[in-house]
């Protein structure tokens, strides 16, 4: 089942297209990293996905064909928006009560136990908590709904490294336990390789790449060799760095017999490296054909 399916999805604000021609089919069970610079269209896509805004053109559905914004979708998707919006004047206890009353299913016992473990007292006002605690509170509220999809908009941007680690550890543990799918947007690339297993790169409102991380890594190599030598014509060069005598090429392999000629160095490309290269590339790349053995 696909957790998200879009077909030529687009959203226009006034005269500008914040998102256009977005076609995705993302299977469930992954942590999808939605990566791109500020203003790329990540928040727009997420807002459409959770039903906060509508699409101008195209189709979109979640969780295997459910319309976005429908009661079934609202029940199954939990969203933590940018800057973790919480009612600052409400106590933690009141916030739990509020969330319970706004949902059909809410695991209050889980939420209270988690907050106890984190040392967040229920009588404190949400606005008085530290940034990390607010993030954990927002995440707890989302996870206590036992959603099938968790959507996070730049969740770790305001957090210090320790808080960031704890936050992501909680998300991953929930994935391991509940079979949760996660879509997470970020404009940073740090720790991408550790947390994401599906990557969607987006820039200027256009999806530049979307593929499982395993496929991406299997399909690319960084080769180093002398300038001017005949390259394998089957290589699709994504990015090249050349000086007088030596060049490095980030290439996408096409077939089974791609190999590195003698004298050339070759290494696997890192996920962050690949993301940067595809974000920089000016032309829209061809879709990535999945490697059979990785399925």
């Amino acid at each position: 089942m696909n957790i998200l399916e879009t077909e030529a999805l687009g959203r226009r604000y006034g005269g500008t297209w914040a998102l256009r021609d977005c076609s995705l089919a993302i299977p469930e069970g992954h942590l999808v990293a939605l990566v791109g610079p500020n203003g790329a269209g990540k928040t727009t896509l997420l807002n459409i996905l959770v039903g906060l805004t509508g699409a101008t053109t195209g189709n979109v559905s979640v969780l295997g064909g459910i319309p976005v914004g429908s009661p079934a979708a609202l029940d199954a998707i939990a969203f933590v928006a940018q800057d973790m919006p919480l009612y600052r004047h409400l106590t933690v206890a009141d916030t739990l009560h509020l969330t319970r009353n706004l949902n059909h299913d809410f695991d209050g016992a889980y939420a209270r136990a988690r907050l106890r473990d984190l040392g967040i007292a229920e009588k404190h006002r949400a606005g008085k908590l530290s940034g990390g605690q607010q993030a954990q509170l927002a995440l707890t509220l989302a996870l206590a709904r036992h959603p099938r999809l968790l959507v996070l908009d730049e969740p770790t941007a305001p957090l210090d490294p320790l808080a960031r680690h704890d936050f992501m550890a909680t998300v991953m543990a929930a994935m391991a336990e509940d079979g949760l799918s996660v879509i997470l947007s970020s404009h940073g690339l740090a720790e991408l390789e550790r947390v994401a297993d599906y990557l969607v790169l987006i820039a200027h409102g256009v999806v530049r790449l979307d593929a499982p991380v395993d496929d991406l890594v299997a399909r690319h190599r960084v080769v180093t060799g002398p300038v001017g030598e005949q390259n394998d014509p089957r290589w699709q060069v994504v990015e090249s760095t050349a000086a007088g005598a030596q060049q490095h090429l980030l290439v996408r392999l096409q077939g089974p017999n791609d190999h590195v000629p003698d004298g050339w160095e070759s290494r696997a490309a890192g996920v962050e490296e690949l993301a940067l290269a595809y974000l920089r590339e000016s032309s829209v790349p061809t879709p990535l054909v999945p490697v059979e053995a990785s399925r």
Partner: protein
Amino acid sequence: MAGSPIAFRLDPASGVPTYLQLVQQVEHALVLGYLKPGDQLPKVREAVADLAINPNTVLKAYRELEHKGLASGRPGQGTFVQAGLSQATLPELAGLRRALLEWLADAEAAGLDANAVSAVFASTLRDFSERREAESPRGARKVRGRTAGGAA
């Protein structure tokens, strides 16, 4: 069952993919005797909560260990060590070390310094591994699969 005898720790700066680090740590633990057949590997949920890594990565590492015949999963219980790593005997190890020292002397005579030696060794090891992969039954399946994909 008290849990696993080992715990994972990641080196974020090593450049080695996460799942491979996990595989290597299990293999090292086996070689060094921390893990014995029948021991349980860390539960996915605990590893994930400690390291803040994707659970699919842990699952991938455990699948790799299963392929190597080192571990097997029992549904609902976890993943358990199945067999030990064959260790080279002490005389064999001594012989290998001697051969390596001779090779290093040759390399030094040819003008290679430590970095150059490292580079040559790494690329040769990779070539060797790739050839081994292609020769093994699983590797041959992989090649066949890619051919089919490439022709499409």
